[in-house]
């Protein structure tokens, strides 16, 4: 940080720019909120930032009617997928950092590389497999897919975290007589709270926000809310009801937004630790 004085012209200019930028970032959210509480009449006569003539919740009610069911699908998909992929990632990270063996480093390299692959390259075979397993268009199928393709990141998080823990700790525990799972459960896991938070929040955001897997593996009754939202805004029949669209978007976006507001620092840590490896 470079020292500058308080109220010089440059300071004022800096603050002004920052506030202007903040406004630009916030405007879409504000617009979404405003629009969701207007009536279609109001939308036509007003403009993006005009205050609703009457604050009407009709948009929200209709939106919930349309996409509400799929909200619960998203919950059914996201919660198990987050928990399972985090758990597996933790165990993998534990093995890769503390119990290295021949081939484990190679595996880690392959895994790391896998973080970069575009999912398009695996979609088709994956959909065959899901179909053969009888899990097409089910939330369970989606959970499986998310677990499989979330492994790379969760393992990465935990492995990088555990690598910084001195292995003298594991050695001491082995001398004390502790076995593989005891060391994990009694010693490493209690120390892992920060990274577990990061992983949970990162995975929650990724999986809740996912669209690609949803639309490929579960369009129909089992689809997540992102797919439902997309269908809603892309319908070309009937008059467009922007209040409903915006309310639906808010419903889809609120969970991750709230998680971000309350646990933002973990979110940031997840971004930057994933980024560091990139």
């Amino acid at each position: 940080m470079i020292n500058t004085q308080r109220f010089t012209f440059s300071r004022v200019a800096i603050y002004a720019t920052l506030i202007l930028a903040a406004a630009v970032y916030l405007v879409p959210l504000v617009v979404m909120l405003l629009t969701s509480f207007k009536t279609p009449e109001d939308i036509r006569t007003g403009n993006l930032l005009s205050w609703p003539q009457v604050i009407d919740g009709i948009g929200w009610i209709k939106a919930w009617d349309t996409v509400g069911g799929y909200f619960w699908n998203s919950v059914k998909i996201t919660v198990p997928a987050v928990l399972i992929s985090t758990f597996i990632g933790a165990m993998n990270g534990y093995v890769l950092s503390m119990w290295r063996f021949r081939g484990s480093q190679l595996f880690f390299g392959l895994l790391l590389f896998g973080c970069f692959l575009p999912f398009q390259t695996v979609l088709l075979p994956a959909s065959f497999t899901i179909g053969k397993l009888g899990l097409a268009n089910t939330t369970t199928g989606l959970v499986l897919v998310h677990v499989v393709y979330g492994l790379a990141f969760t393992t990465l998080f935990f492995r990088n975290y555990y690598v910084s823990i001195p292995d003298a700790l594991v050695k001491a525990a082995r001398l004390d007589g502790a076995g593989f799972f005891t060391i994990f459960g009694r010693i490493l896991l209690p120390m892992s709270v920060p990274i577990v938070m990061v992983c949970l929040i990162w995975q929650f955001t990724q999986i809740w926000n996912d669209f690609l897997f949803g639309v490929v593996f579960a369009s129909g009754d089992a689809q997540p809310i992102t797919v439902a939202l997309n269908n809603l805004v892309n319908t070309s029949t009937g008059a467009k009801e922007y209040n409903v669209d915006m309310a639906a978007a808010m419903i889809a976006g609120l969970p991750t937004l709230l998680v971000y507001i309350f646990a933002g620092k973990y979110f940031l840590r997840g971004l930057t630790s994933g980024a560091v490896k990139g």
Partner: protein
Amino acid sequence: MSSVAVFSKASPFDALQRWLPKLVLAPSMLIVLVGFYGYIFWTFLLSFTNSSFMPSYQWVGLQQYARLMANDRWWVASKNLAVFGGMFIVISLVIGVFLAILLDQRIRKEGFIRTIYLYPMALSMIVTGTAWKWLLNPGLGLDKMLRDWGWEGFRFDWLLDQDRVVYCLVIAAVWQASGFVMAMFLAGLRGVDQSIIRAAQVDGASLPTIYLRIVLPSLRPVFFSAFMILAHIAIKSFDLVSAMTAGGPGYSSDLPAMFMYSFTFSRGQMGIGSASAIMMLGAILAILVPYLYSELRNKRHD
């Protein structure tokens, strides 16, 4: 690093302990081998077949690739990716770095402001696409607002303009990702050795010069990381296109990811769809491999 100790004919518990790490890792290893690399290979194979609605394993050589190359929509999609990707990355970097530098100036409520810049990353690209689709709505969105505010005759119908619709995608994507670039660079700036900056100040350099000539060049690794991640986002931007334009008008805002989905799953052209997926992989590898190579080489020199 400690390897597993030699075990004698001792208890079966010991033998289990020795195998446990491998057992624990095995399922994941299997998943990675099959689900990542196995499937990629499978897709690769399919791209050489004449699969359409159902997979067939009849070999047709490079026919699908030829069809791909002859497909106008694929070219439009690829060109869009280059334009979209290039603009998205450059503009996000510029804005992100700029904001990071500003925030580095010991701003009050820095955390609060940072939170505002970063929140878009928490949203699904479908939500982002939906929001911006509305914001840029020709007739009811931005242009109406500006007209209401006094700017008569302002029109903004880029969403309907074949040549300009890609820019709309860029705007939405930059809004979403620039906060993240800012966060990365802010962290990087905080890690810069203060004594170098002080030395430059003593030498008489002005603040902008210090940033441009000294600080930013030292943040090359951060530039690389940010570039990699932004490129990754760009190549994957299926969600954004879907929500904002559905590839339209026509297919003028199509992107390879969308093309692949459309041809593989909607149009029942698995062969050409697979070929397009492999092309996408090739694009990523073209960026990734030189990057990794240079990283490894640098490590060896350190």
